[in-house]
């Protein structure tokens, strides 16, 4: 009896908390559908009586959203590709060797993770401008994001590699494979899930990245959607429905990916992604 009541209480608390967390998201979706007057009505309506679907098309056209989204995709995919290729090798080495140098390396990697982007951007900006990399602003942002997110990826993927037993690799070596062959044939397929999950998390981070893009990319035609959304807003903005439509178009694909892969992401993060 008391057990069931406790469970019900817990469930109720969980629902209330979830509602609080998800309310802004709900408000974003609702606002996009409201007309100008409905937006400022008091009391506010929680369900639009006259949904304005045309807002989406209007924002897509007027703000050139296709270009922003494309830039976001280019930056996110670029960063993920760079991080996956470099980080996987790094994580493997850190997983397979155990000595003082490795511990120092891990410590430094974790330290990198601690530094916030807003602190890093000044030296990065100065360095990039010295190297002339600001000529290629999207590439510059990809490299900056890769540097920022690599530690996170390496730490996650290292755990995945550590869950692949060393004996499997040794069996492959005795079976006639080289170290590199064993890595590609045996270790990589078994660590695939963990790498995939980590890559998706990196993608979501990079897709929403703001600080580096805002600072490094001056030309509007190379700016990603996060910067575009920011420049949409000003001190006297009142077209909230349009801003929310922009945000909706920007955020919904990532949300959808997360919801679809949610189970795999969670299991990949907890179980080292094996079996």
């Amino acid at each position, binding site marked *: 009896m008391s057990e069931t009541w406790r469970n019900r209480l817990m469930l109720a608390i969980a629902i209330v908390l979830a509602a609080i967390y998800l309310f802004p998201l709900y408000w974003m979706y609702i606002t996009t559908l409201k007309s100008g007057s409905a937006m400022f009505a008091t009391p506010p309506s929680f369900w639009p009586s006259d949904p304005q679907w045309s807002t989406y098309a209007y924002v897509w056209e007027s703000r050139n959203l296709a270009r922003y989204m494309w830039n976001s995709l280019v930056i996110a995919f670029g960063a993920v590709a760079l991080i996956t290729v470099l980080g996987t090798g790094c994580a493997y080495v850190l997983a397979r060797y155990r000595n003082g140098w490795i511990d120092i390396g891990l410590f430094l990697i974790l330290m990198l993770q601690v530094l916030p982007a807003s602190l890093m951007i000044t030296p990065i900006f100065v360095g990039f401008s010295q190297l002339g990399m600001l000529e290629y602003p999207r590439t510059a942002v990809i490299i900056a994001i890769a540097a920022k997110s690599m530690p996170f990826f390496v730490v996650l993927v290292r755990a995945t590699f550590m869950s692949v037993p060393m*004996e499997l690799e040794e*069996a*492959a*070596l*005795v*079976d006639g494979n080289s170290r590199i062959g064993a890595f590609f044939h045996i270790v990589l397929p078994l660590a695939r899930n963990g790498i995939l999950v980590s890559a998706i998390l990196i993608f979501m981070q990079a897709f929403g990245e703001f600080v580096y893009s805002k600072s490094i990319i001056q030309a509007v035609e190379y700016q990603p959607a996060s910067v575009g959304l920011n420049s949409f807003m000003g001190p006297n903005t009142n077209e909230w429905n349009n801003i929310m439509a922009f945000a909706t178009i920007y955020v919904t694909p990532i949300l959808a990916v997360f919801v679809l892969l949610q189970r795999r992401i969670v299991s990949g993060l907890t179980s080292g992604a094996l079996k």
Partner: protein
Amino acid sequence: MTHQIELSGVNKYYGAYHALRDIDLKIRKGSFVALVGPSGCGKSTLLRSLAGLESISAGDLIIAGERMNGVPPRKRGIAMVFQSYALYPHMTVEENLTYSLRIRGVKKAEAKKAAEEVAATTGLSNLLHRYPRELSGGQRQRVAMSRAIIRHPKAFLFDEPLSNLDAALRVHMRKEIRSLHDRLGATSVYVTHDQIEAMTMADHVVVMRQGVIEQQGPPLELYDRPVNKFVAGFIGSPAMNFIPAKVGADGRSLVFELGNPQFVTLDRPLPTASKLIVGLRPEHLRLVQEGDAQIRLPVGVVESTGSMTYITSATTPEINVVVTDRQPLRSGEMMSLGFDPAHLHLFDTDSERRIDIAG
């Protein structure tokens, strides 16, 4: 060249830790060699060095006449069965079996045929399309063995392959591995911590401790003539009894120090060392009539398994006796024990080495 594997003066260091010390070992072609010893004795390190998974710090390692010291595992032509089986979880049984062939570029159809042939001999024919996670422990064990067999290697290396199986299956697989070895005419090196496995399976047993080969030879030789107290205690189950003793004043008798001294007349010349350790196997002690007793001890614990009775004496050190009939003995009673002096082993108290007695 009848030796398939030859090790001479092999040493291995992990930093300052000396894992293998001056290992000399010759393994005849077609023989079954067991490396046995307590954990941390270096037996697995030795096996891994043979496989090429560890490099040796000094000495020569020769496989089939070729020096293999720095040769990577894939070029050594040996197969290994791991303790955890190390089956590739993302491949079916067939893919597991043919993996080594596919790496070497054997044609698909040929590899498939080879897998089917091997599977037929190891009873895996109807499991070829399963994944390792869908197999029982014994079946996984067979896949691991088959994966080794399919390559026709120069030698099979086994790293405690039976330790993950239950007792009944272990006894069964023991026989199966041995008969497979005989059928293939292979050379096998088998690492185990279980001396029963070593004794029952091997032609040649190598007992190791702390990186040193303590003794090697045919199993029964190790049982009959252990070179030191360690080998004597390690080989045989239940373990040999060790009793501190003094040589009597006449030089032809022993005084066992078991609480109160027990005089044993051997009627043969004994070494001059005044203090010794006497080794007596539990199965070599028998219960006798009071008049024929060589030693008399108080009974401690009596355990019967039906076929065997295990008696432990209430002395320090404890003396174990194994007899094959049932005994109405009770704790606290006195028992009279006899033994054949030929079954007595003598060891030096300090060096723990065997002391031979004449005739």
